[in-house]
């Protein structure tokens, strides 16, 4: 081998080993996984690396793929948790409904020993409480959290109980333990959040808004309007005044669960497809991934502490005391779909798909 050949080989070898990103070294922590359960928090676990004495955990709301890991702080919400000595970590104080990127790096003697190739993503979400902040005696309801066996009743536990005790911190506001924020038509946070809806209102005055963000579940919900007239025929392909509170639809349009499945059962009607497509085309509140919610998602905004309607009406005005369709089919009745009755909050299965029913969109 000539001297030059040896030099080139040596240079190439140096290059290869210094750019560790080209392949996964054996000492990169593997099986990085996230447990998403828990309000505003994510728990990460990974396989320990033999010989490593510490781990550095990086996270951000953008991918690390295009940067040198040392420049993590240039990424949105880029954060480094240094010198962890366990192979699990719970990160708190995250924003529900936002996707986070995580990388764990193994270290030995305070030098970087592995690469960022184990990047994973996870989105923290919380679970809404019921909204019940009062107790019950066998003869009736009380106005406060008192009653027989009260320590075991609904009002003594969860976010609602912390709201009563004054120990609950919220991003926005809302009845009992609920935490909502109003968004304008382009996704802007409404500057004035505490005004009631007005038929001839404006976003500037805080009296009209397009959507509500649930700060616990991370879901963003369509708000219904009372302006103009309802579209009295949603079965044709021309859907007008799509957000009107009195528009009703047969079940099964775009985003209905199972719609594309070869073994689907029962009928799927396209009535609400105009609502989904129209909301996406207009980028309602800045989003183009609108869909009909599952029955569980629909139940998340039911306020069981009130009725007629069973929802926080300050944030969700123009909520008719009626049923709303979910995207969920019923497993034992092929012609039915789950719907939620917002008069009191019970989840029927008896919603025949042919029966025109209200719909409120959600995303993501």
């Amino acid at each position, binding site marked *: 081998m000539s001297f030059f050949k040896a030099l080139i080989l040596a240079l190439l070898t140096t290059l290869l080993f210094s750019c560790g990103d080209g392949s996964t070294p054996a000492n990169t922590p593997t099986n990085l996984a996230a447990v998403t359960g828990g309000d505003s928090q994510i728990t990460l676990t990974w396989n320990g690396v033999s010989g490593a004495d510490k781990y550095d955990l990086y996270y951000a709301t953008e991918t690390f793929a295009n940067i040198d890991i040392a420049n993590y702080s240039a990424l949105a919400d880029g954060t480094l948790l240094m010198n962890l000595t366990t192979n699990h970590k719970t990160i708190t104080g995250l924003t529900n409904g936002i996707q986070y990127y995580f990388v764990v790096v193994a270290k030995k003697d305070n030098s970087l020993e592995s690469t960022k190739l184990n990047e994973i993503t996870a989105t923290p979400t919380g679970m809404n409480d019921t909204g019940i902040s009062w107790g019950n005696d066998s003869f*009736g309801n009380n106005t406060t959290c008192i009653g027989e*066996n009260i320590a075991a009743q609904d009002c003594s536990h969860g976010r609602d109980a912390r709201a009563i005790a004054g120990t609950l911190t919220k991003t926005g506001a809302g009845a009992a333990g609920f935490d909502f924020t109003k968004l304008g038509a382009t996704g802007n946070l409404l500057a004035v959040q505490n005004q009631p809806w007005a038929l001839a209102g404006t976003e500037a005055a805080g009296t009209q808004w397009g959507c509500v963000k649930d700060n616990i579940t991370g879901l963003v919900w369509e708000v219904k309007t009372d302006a103009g007239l309802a579209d009295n025929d949603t079965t044709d392909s021309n859907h007008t005044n799509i957000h009107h509170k009195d528009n009703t639809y047969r079940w099964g349009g775009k985003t209905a669960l199972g719609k594309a499945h070869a073994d*689907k059962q029962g009928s799927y009607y396209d009535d609400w497809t105009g609502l989904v497509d129209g909301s996406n085309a207009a980028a309602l509140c800045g989003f183009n991934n609108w869909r009909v919610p599952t029955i*569980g998602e629909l139940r998340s905004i039911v306020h069981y502490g009130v009725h007629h309607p069973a929802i926080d009406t300050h944030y969700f005005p123009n909520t008719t005391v009626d049923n709303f369709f979910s995207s969920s*089919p*019923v497993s*034992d009745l092929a012609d039915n779909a789950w719907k939620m009755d917002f008069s009191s909050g*019970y989840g029927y299965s008896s919603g025949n798909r042919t029966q025109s029913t209200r719909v409120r969109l959600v995303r993501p």
Partner: protein
Amino acid sequence: MKIKFLLSTLLLISGIVSAQTCLDYIPNEWQDSRYINNHNGTVTDTITNLIWKQCSEGQTYSSSDNTCTGSATKMNWQEALGKAGTSFAGKTDWRLPNIKELDSLVVRNCHNPSINETLFPNTPAYVFFSSSPVSSTPSTDAWRVIFFYGYSYYRYHSNSYTVRLVRPRE
């Protein structure tokens, strides 16, 4: 002969246990991977961050084969609330779930029963009480979920239903 008898017994048992019907066109958001079996009669739901008893009240947890034996006890609402604070798996903060917590166990792609039977074995396809009273009249009711197919509605406190307890994850 002995094997034949054993086989027919097995078939008989499986015939009773596997009455559940699941449809593959409805998405299953309640697969085994969502839950952590703590192997002490409790299960952690990693989506809701709740810890559930695998057995209904009245049933006995059998750790050797991870199942629930015996019949679930039916009780009225005050008796169900009274189950809170009982000791199990080294914890005493067990309580009746609220209506949203109870509903989060409902598997929408299956019925009879509408629950993950691997992690909640031998669950009766029956009515379970929640801790949530009812805002609309009559205020002598409590919310409940029917685990035959997942319907939720309210009925009298004085009626007797089955109970599954829950506690928060630390």
